[in-house]
């Protein structure tokens, strides 16, 4: 019997997953639409495809963690110190760490409870294309409705960015932005798009919103992957582990390039190009799927 995913498909889907997970354009939406457009017999609810996605998500989470390693070390130290002292004190990393915890809990709860229902409800490529257009509208709306963002000196270092995030984002903001990540359970909506948009709406600059979105994405992507790791290692992974490993390596490669590119891109640019892309790509995919 042929493997459910060929190595060629694994390379394409891995490269796509790594990039689209971090670009605010919905990785799930693309992984639903692309196989349909290419005529591949791969559907998002297939067991083998979920196993494949576990590997690519794990790779993306590891890349994100390594890219922001120095931030994470300071955040973890801040969390530990604040727990020991029962006080956040003046440590910006303790506050940032607890903001990430507060943002991750609602996303995790909603993901745990709604994942299957939403995926089953919106499993078709047509709906993914439609929601991709809505994702574009959401990104554009966030740019239009944003509060006046602080003028940020792009030469400032990561510490200054982390401090600004801690000073700007309130506990309620973090909870709302975290909950907005659950939108990404619907194929077509982007997790990073929702968090970046939320960051803009609470007054962060594009660069700080992107940093907060990537920090917030790391635990939730990693936890989701680890939770499903038994699927990859169990019988559901038979015949998929080789392509999954190749896909994970490809995903790690494009995830690294993507986060590096996006952190520089958002020093001077906005979400608008991604909003336009999502609307156009969603519309084009809708027309294509309706006519074939």
């Amino acid at each position, binding site marked *: 019997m042929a493997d459910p995913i060929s190595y060629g498909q694994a390379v394409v889907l891995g490269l796509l997953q790594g990039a689209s997970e971090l670009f605010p354009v919905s990785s799930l939406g693309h992984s639903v639409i692309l196989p349909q457009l290419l005529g591949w017999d791969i559907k998002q609810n297939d067991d083998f495809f979920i196993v494949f996605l576990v590997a690519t998500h794990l790779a993306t989470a590891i890349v994100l963690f390594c890219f922001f390693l120095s931030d994470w070390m300071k955040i973890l130290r801040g969390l530990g110190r604040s727990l020991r002292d*029962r*006080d*956040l004190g003046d440590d910006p990393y303790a506050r940032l760490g607890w903001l990430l915890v507060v943002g991750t809990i609602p996303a995790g709860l909603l993901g745990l*409870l709604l994942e299957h229902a939403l995926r089953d409800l919106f499993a078709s490529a047509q709906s993914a294309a439609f929601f991709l257009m809505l994702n574009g509208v959401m990104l554009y709306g966030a740019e239009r409705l944003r509060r006046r963002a602080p003028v940020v000196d792009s030469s400032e270092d990561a510490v200054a960015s982390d401090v600004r995030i801690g000073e700007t984002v309130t506990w309620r903001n973090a909870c709302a932005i975290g909950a907005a990540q659950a939108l990404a359970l619907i194929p077509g909506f982007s997790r990073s798009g929702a968090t970046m948009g939320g960051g803009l709406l609470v007054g962060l600059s594009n660069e700080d919103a992107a940093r907060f979105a990537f920090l917030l994405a790391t635990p939730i992507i990693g936890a989701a992957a680890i939770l499903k790791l038994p699927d990859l290692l169990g019988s559901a992974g038979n015949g998929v582990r080789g392509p999954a490993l190749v896909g994970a390596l490809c995903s790690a490669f494009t995830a690294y390039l993507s986060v590096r590119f996006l952190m520089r891109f958002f020093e001077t640019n906005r979400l608008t190009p991604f909003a336009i892309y999502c609307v156009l790509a969603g519309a084009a995919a809708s027309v294509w799927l309706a006519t074939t």
Partner: protein
Amino acid sequence: MSDRTINILLVVAGVILVLLAIVYWIEPAKSLPSVMPGHEAGSTHHHVKHGIAAFLLGIGAFVLAWFRTGPRHSAA
């Protein structure tokens, strides 16, 4: 409501949620009390994710109580 009462309620909620998590992990859906979300007559499925969700909320309640019983100027 006084701070002390809120702290006690948070700890009680934490204990209950962690216990609920354990029940979700060890009991199949058919054996869950009918008032608990996930109860399903005849089902042998274990609601592991419900358990994780309850456990996370329980830990969150404990952490909040921990900070609230710390120094007065704590903001968490």
